[in-house]
């Protein structure tokens, strides 16, 4: 077969490289196979164009007729060429004498669409010791990831490549929106072209022939770390652009191999050389490999996040905005390794979290506030809030390993276990019957556990706090977006909410599920289901109306679907949790009275569902508990009493925690009130938010919810208090730079008390591996029907076959018996157990801590019991480890 004719295209853009250009043209003239023509395309530089025409005889000199840049210049060369093959050589490269001959030889195979060759780096001042050969693509040369012998490749190095002209023309040439323009170090236009060419001709191949070599000049200014870094970053951006055009799989196929094989091998070799031979260059090369990879990945991520943002300056801004979050997450992850849980004091996790944790948290909190002030995009702010949630709520989860936080969560796991074993619930069961009467959350988890083939909900229950907190972000954003017109107020309120909601009700519980659905119902009702009647309200209803930004109306079909969804959510709320339906009823009633949502029958439906559910499912529970339910009606003062820290007996650490609880709760109420006043002055919407913040209060009149009502009222009010508090800062006219201090101060002021309040009782809420092992031993060895006795209920109990046992806790004894416990512990215990056999007495570290924190038992009561039991007749120690002891009571 006769050899094909070739046109060689050399593109140039600056007269500063005249000597290099001359050498490149000369090297083509010296080829063993003469090209049909040499085309020099000058990229929008008239002076260079003039000089080339005068001083490069034998070469056709053309001006770039397309847009400025390498792609436009190459396309101009292709359009003007006459050869059957078009070969490209960079203006600062010199071809070997047999270069063209070897390239053309590849075209003997008719399936070859293009051929390229090796590009060897010709360093002006020698290769820097730190510069790895694996990254020679940074300076436009062949790297170690390319084959040593002739092989099929995905794409060529742009400095040395050739294609059949017919294919290039049919393809439309290089994309002008890709590729280097002047010194802007972005590229990948040849990669994209090669991918496009291969896709157009699936039967064809691109052949890489290393013997067709050129030497590529690398000037001294490219030996610097800053060039390396910016080129890596630009490569990531370019790859993202190509991935957006050609699809991720083809765009990254070769890179995946390179990252998996070439780079790890290179790093290992460089590090070995560095360590074994004590060669600093080796260590630097290993570092450069890691840094280069990381920088390219960041560039790629930025490119994918901002597909239109090709401006390096704009992307630098984005990196500056994402950077603090990435750094904070890295610091946080590193900080967790340093935590020593046994060192916890009476301020809980706060005492063992290292400085790096606090730096990470501060970085996220401050950056979020600054970005909110700077009108950052919703996507970026969402990422920061997700980071904040991770740092706040995933920390205990990760630190505690498989041990689920809070003793209540273990009982909840036990109800799920019951449903999976019995395929039923039993509202008349007696022990923990409330959970059987409101089983929605537990039945949902039973479905997940069994369908997923898990042995227990313990497999994932520890992750509930971060997951519930993340899930709440969507409805909260919708809700705040409806209640407030200012976007900065909305995002600051979201930040405040996560830093103020210290009550810890997002754990594996029906309350967390109910609260999430409560937020969704309110978000849908307020945002999507406006009342149809718009005429003025009667006088008595006016305090409930007005003050809500305009909302777009949804279509009748959407409205019908949304109403159906709201009713379904109500049913799930009613059947999952005792308290939440009443909170929702209070809020919905206020909204319907003020005509903020409709139809007006929504609260009536909720009320009917609630009553019907109690009538059908919860009558047994109601009969058992009627006395205290009725007793607490109409006693709001008594209902605000809480069961938490007993300040009379508390240590200084626990006193600090309790003050933080109170300061945060009171502070949020004050901030909300102040925000409400400011909103009145600025004319911002405030009335509906205030109504919703107040809507949980009527529940205080009705019930004390086992001493927790005040906390639950705060939980349901906290989103709206947060929105009102954010109203203290926004809306605010732009222009004064110092005002960024306001949101920063606000969130920083909340962070400290939040951490104390949220992490402060972790000595009680965390169960050590020894405590968990002891509880597992108990349920593995105690026969069915046994009585399980604890000092308090604060240990892992009820999570397995819970209904097979009876339970008694000394904290529930009559006051006179509790008083006698320190003096005659065994006698009190005997009376508490009575004639029930077998009986197992479980004493743990966490019970001791909870008794001390809450004051439910006299000081030293559990210590006295632990000291007396080893010598007590009939009590035999059957299990013991560092944090738990179990005694069995035998005999009649």
């Amino acid at each position, binding site marked *: 077969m006769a050899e094909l004719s070739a046109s060689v295209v050399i593109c140039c853009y600056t007269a500063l490289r005249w000597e290099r250009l001359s050498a490149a043209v000369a090297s083509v003239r010296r080829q063993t196979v003469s090209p049909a023509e040499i085309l020099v395309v000058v990229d929008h530089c008239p002076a260079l164009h003039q000089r080339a025409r005068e001083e490069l005889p034998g070469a056709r000199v053309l001006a770039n007729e397309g847009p400025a840049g390498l792609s436009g210049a190459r396309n101009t060369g292709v359009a003007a060429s006459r050869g059957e093959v078009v070969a490209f050589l960079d203006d600062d490269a010199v071809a070997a004498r047999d270069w063209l001959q070897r390239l053309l030889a590849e075209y003997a195979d008719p399936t070859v669409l293009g051929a390229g060759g090796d590009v060897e780096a010709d360093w002006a001042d020698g290769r820097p010791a730190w510069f790895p050969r694996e990254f020679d693509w940074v300076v436009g040369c062949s790297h170690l990831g390319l084959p040593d012998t002739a092989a099929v490749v995905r794409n060529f190095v742009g400095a040395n490549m050739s294609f059949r002209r017919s294919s290039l023309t049919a393809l439309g040439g290089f994309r002008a929106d890709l590729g280097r323009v002047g010194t802007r170090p972005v590229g990948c236009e040849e990669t994209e072209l090669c991918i496009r060419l291969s896709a157009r001709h699936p039967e064809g191949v691109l052949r890489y022939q290393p013997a067709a070599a050129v030497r590529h000049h690398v000037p001294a200014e490219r030996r610097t770390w800053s060039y390396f870094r910016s080129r890596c970053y630009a490569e990531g951006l370019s790859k993202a652009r190509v991935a957006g055009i050609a699809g991720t799989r083809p765009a990254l196929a070769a890179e995946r191999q390179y990252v998996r094989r070439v780079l790890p091998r290179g790093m290992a070799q460089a590090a070995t050389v560095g360590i074994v031979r004590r060669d600093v260059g080796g260590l630097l090369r290993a570092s450069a490999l890691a840094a280069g990879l990381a920088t390219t990945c960041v560039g790629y991520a930025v490119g994918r996040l901002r597909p239109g943002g090709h401006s390096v300056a704009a992307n630098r801004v984005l990196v500056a905005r994402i950077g603090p979050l990435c750094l904070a997450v890295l610091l946080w992850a590193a900080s967790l390794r340093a935590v020593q849980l046994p060192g916890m004091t009476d301020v809980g996790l706060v005492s063992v979290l290292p400085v790096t944790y606090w730096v990470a948290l501060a970085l996220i909190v401050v950056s979020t506030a600054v970005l909110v002030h700077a009108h950052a995009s919703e996507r970026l702010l969402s990422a920061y809030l997700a980071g904040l949630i991770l740092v706040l709520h995933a920390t205990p989860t990760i630190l505690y390993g498989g041990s689920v936080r809070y003793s209540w969560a273990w009982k909840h796991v036990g109800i799920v276990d019951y449903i999976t074993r019995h395929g039923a619930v039993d509202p008349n069961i007696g022990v923990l019957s409330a959970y059987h009467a409101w089983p929605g959350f537990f039945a949902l988890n*039973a479905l997940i556990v069994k369908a997923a*083939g898990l042995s227990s909900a313990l497999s994932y229950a520890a992750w509930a706090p971060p997951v519930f907190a993340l899930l709440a972000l969507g409805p909260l954003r919708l809700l705040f977006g409806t209640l407030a017109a200012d976007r900065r107020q909305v995002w600051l309120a979201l930040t405040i909410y996560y830093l103020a909601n210290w009550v810890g009700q997002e754990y594996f519980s029906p309350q967390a599920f109910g609260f999430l659905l409560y937020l969704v119902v309110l978000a849908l009702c307020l945002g999507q289901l406006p009342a149809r009647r718009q005429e003025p309200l009667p006088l008595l209803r006016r305090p409930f109306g007005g003050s809500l930004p305009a909302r777009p109306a949804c279509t009748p079909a959407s409205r019908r679907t949304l109403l159906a969804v709201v009713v379904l959510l109500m049913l799930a709320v009613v059947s999952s949790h005792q308290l939440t339906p009443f909170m929702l009823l209070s809020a919905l009633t206020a909204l319907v009275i003020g005509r903020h949502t409709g139809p007006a029958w929504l609260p009536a439906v909720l009320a009917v569902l609630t009553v019907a559910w109690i009538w059908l499912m919860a009558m047994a529970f109601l009969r058992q508990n009627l006395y205290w339910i009725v007793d607490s009606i109409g006693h709001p003062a008594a209902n605000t009493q809480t069961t938490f820290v007993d300040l009379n007996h508390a240590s200084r650490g626990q006193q600090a925690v309790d003050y933080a609880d109170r300061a945060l709760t009171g502070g949020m109420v004050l901030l909300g009130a102040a925000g409400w006043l400011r909103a009145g002055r600025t004319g911002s919407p405030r009335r509906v938010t205030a109504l919703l913040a107040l809507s949980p209060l009527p529940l205080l009149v009705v019930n004390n919810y086992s001493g927790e009502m005040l906390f639950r009222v705060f939980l349901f009010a906290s989103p709206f208090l947060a929105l009102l508090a954010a109203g203290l800062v926004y809306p605010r006219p732009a222009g004064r730079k110092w005002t960024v201090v306001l949101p920063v101060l606000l969130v920083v002021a909340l962070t400290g008390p939040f951490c104390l309040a949220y992490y402060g009782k972790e000595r009680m809420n965390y169960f050590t591996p020894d405590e968990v092992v002891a509880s597992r031993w108990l349920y593995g060895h105690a026969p069915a029907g046994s009585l399980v006795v604890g000092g308090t209920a604060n240990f892992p109990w009820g999570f397995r076959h819970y209904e097979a046992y009876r339970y008694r806790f000394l904290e529930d004894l009559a006051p006179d018996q509790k008083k006698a416990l320190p003096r005659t512990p065994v006698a009190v215990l005997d009376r508490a157990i009575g004639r029930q056999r077998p009986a197992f007495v479980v004493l743990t570290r966490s019970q001791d801590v909870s008794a001390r924190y809450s004051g439910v038992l006299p000081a030293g009561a559990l210590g006295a019991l632990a000291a007396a039991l080893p010598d007590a007749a009939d009590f035999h120690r059957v299990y013991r480890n560092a944090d738990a002891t179990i005694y069995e009571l035998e005999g009649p």
Partner: protein
Amino acid sequence: MNRRTVVLASAVVVVSAELIGIGQPWQTAAVFAFVALVPGLALLRTLEGTDRLTRVVVTVAASLALAAALSETFAIVHHWTAIAVMVTLAAISVLACVRLGAGR
């Protein structure tokens, strides 16, 4: 791929996974994704005109609420088995998808 195909395929995959078991962690991931997303996806066709976040929130909340309501109904009538609930959930999702004409 249109939404109807997603719902149908998910229903088939998750019910098959439940019957034959596909090993961990895939089975857990498939069940979580199905329970939290698929029933709500069937409703989205009728929510055109609403914003994206509303659609996402409705998808997740409606899916979880429906799964909870169904599962507890089976438990209350003492006929709860995971496969029965999953098949019913899948059937309701597919039926809703077909009846509501879920498209792209």
